[in-house]
């Protein structure tokens, strides 16, 4: 299996606070890796270093065997806020990355329309974001991330602002799209259930200083139905993670 992402001893401090201890990590191509941890454990810092928004104090970032430390434009990136531009239509938002770099081509637009109609928003291409529900906006944001064709996608709690019902539906939707699009996903979440439901692998992080304290392989098979939520292996993995997060009782 190919290694898509490699981190060599990445460390980052802000002043006297150590946000991230020297951390090394390898992510396989095509895998779905979840990162769970409380606030301040360094997960967002990790993302920002991988995305090139932050320069690490030490270490290197490799994406597809290329050194990309401190540079940007090589990953897809998505936050809890959809960050859709209110002054642009859904279609224009999906093609945002192209517009911000080399300019939008007719192929970009056709791809945007294809993706939108494939994943249920074909009717809303000329709508403005404010006319859409929260879930729909996050799906547009995901499509925007998808069309950039980056093999690595960083998703930072994308469903955190949605209600539980919508969140469940979005998780199922995400799994479907991921399967079809064939990308590598790094997914940050607070929600332990979500991390196990979605991922092949769960990394647990801990604060003060920020570091990875556990790396679990997810035994559950794919495709994942709602039944896995009550599977014994699910519950056991969840129990292990919870203990790590909240201390042994």
């Amino acid at each position, binding site marked *: 299996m190919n290694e898509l992402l490699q981190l060599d001893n990445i460390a980052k401090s802000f002043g006297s606070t150590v946000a991230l201890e020297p951390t090394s990590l390898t992510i396989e191509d095509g895998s779905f890796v979840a990162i769970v941890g409380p606030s301040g454990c360094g997960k967002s810092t990790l993302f*920002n270093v991988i*995305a*090139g*928004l932050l320069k690490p104090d030490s270490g290197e970032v490799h994406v597809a065997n290329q050194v990309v430390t401190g540079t*940007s*434009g*090589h*990953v897809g*990136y998505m*936050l809890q*806020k959809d*960050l859709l*531009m*209110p*002054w*642009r*239509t859904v279609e224009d938002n999906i093609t*945002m*990355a192209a*517009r*911000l*770099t080399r300019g939008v081509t*007719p192929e970009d*637009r*056709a791809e945007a*329309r*294809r993706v939108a*109609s*494939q*994943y*249920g*928003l*074909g*009717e*809303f*291409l*000329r*709508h*403005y974001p*404010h*006319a*859409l*529900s929260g*879930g*729909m906006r996050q799906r547009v944001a995901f499509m925007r991330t998808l069309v*950039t064709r980056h093999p690595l996608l960083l998703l930072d709690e994308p469903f955190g602002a949605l209600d539980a*019902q*919508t969140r469940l*539906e*979005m998780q199922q*939707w995400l799994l*479907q799209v991921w399967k*079809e699009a064939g990308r590598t996903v790094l997914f940050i979440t607070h929600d332990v259930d979500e991390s196990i439901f979605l991922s092949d692998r769960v990394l647990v992080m801990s604060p003060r200083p920020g570091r990875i304290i556990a790396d679990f392989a997810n035994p559950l098979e794919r495709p994942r139905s709602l039944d896995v939520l009550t599977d014994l292996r699910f519950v056991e993995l969840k129990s292990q993670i919870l203990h790590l997060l909240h201390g042994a009782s």
Partner: protein
Amino acid sequence: MDSNPQKAPLSTMNIDRATLPRSSVRVTRSRRRAVLRNVGIPILSIALLLLLWEAIVVVFHVAPYIAPRPLAAIQSVTDNWGSLWPLVLGTIRETIYGFVCGTILGIGLGVVMAKAPFLHRMVYPVLVLSQGVPIIALGAPIVLILGFGIAPKVVIVAWIVFFPVTVNVVAGLSHVDQDLLNLARVYGASEWRTFFLIEIPASSTSLFAGLKIGATYAVTGAIIGELVSPSGASGSLALYQEHANTNFNVAAVYGTTMVMTAIGISWFLLIVASEVVATPWQRRTVARRSLFHREPGVDLTSTGH
């Protein structure tokens, strides 16, 4: 139903039903009603005001040399329209030129100050000071430099307009979502593209707020300019009114006030209209069909349901 048979669209989910757009027929009907409301009611209230004015003059036997009846004021305007029209045009010209200059200056200054905090700290106190200067005191110095003619009026209007525009442009640019800017960086966007494609549209609400404030005062500025800087033989609307006042032509005084008010309101409404045109997302849920992005062979209406 679906143009792409192998991949079934995921559109039967509950989350889609949450906000379906209103039907286009309902949109048109409610928009017609809104126009009626937004245009009809102001016209009605103006008519009521004029009626009230007429009533006061008649009931209290107000002498015609104190205050005229509204019809007398209007008649004074229509009777003298030949000589008033070039003066009105002059005031309009001063307003437009001054507003444009003030806007360009305001946007330019605002962008520079938003991008360079050091300049911001240096320039901001000077800006505030500039607004503390009473406009009336500006008249003579400006005329001594720029002479008689349209230039001093344009300067005065620009002086009044640029400040709210600058302040609002600075505010708008400083409040662009930092996460959105980060996202643009992650995508590898250049500074220029980020500025034109994100920062400028993001501050459009602020910008138009500033423009509307400036527009409100622009005509007043032109009138003040006409009063404090002579216009030579061509005259000006303000001087026409001043003249009417000294010559006890009360109907003409009120009439010219009505004309000035009309100019002011029209200019403001023009700016509001340009905001509506420039920022369609604030009023519409669906964008108008663009003339540019039409692709042959792709029929959007058949993308299924």
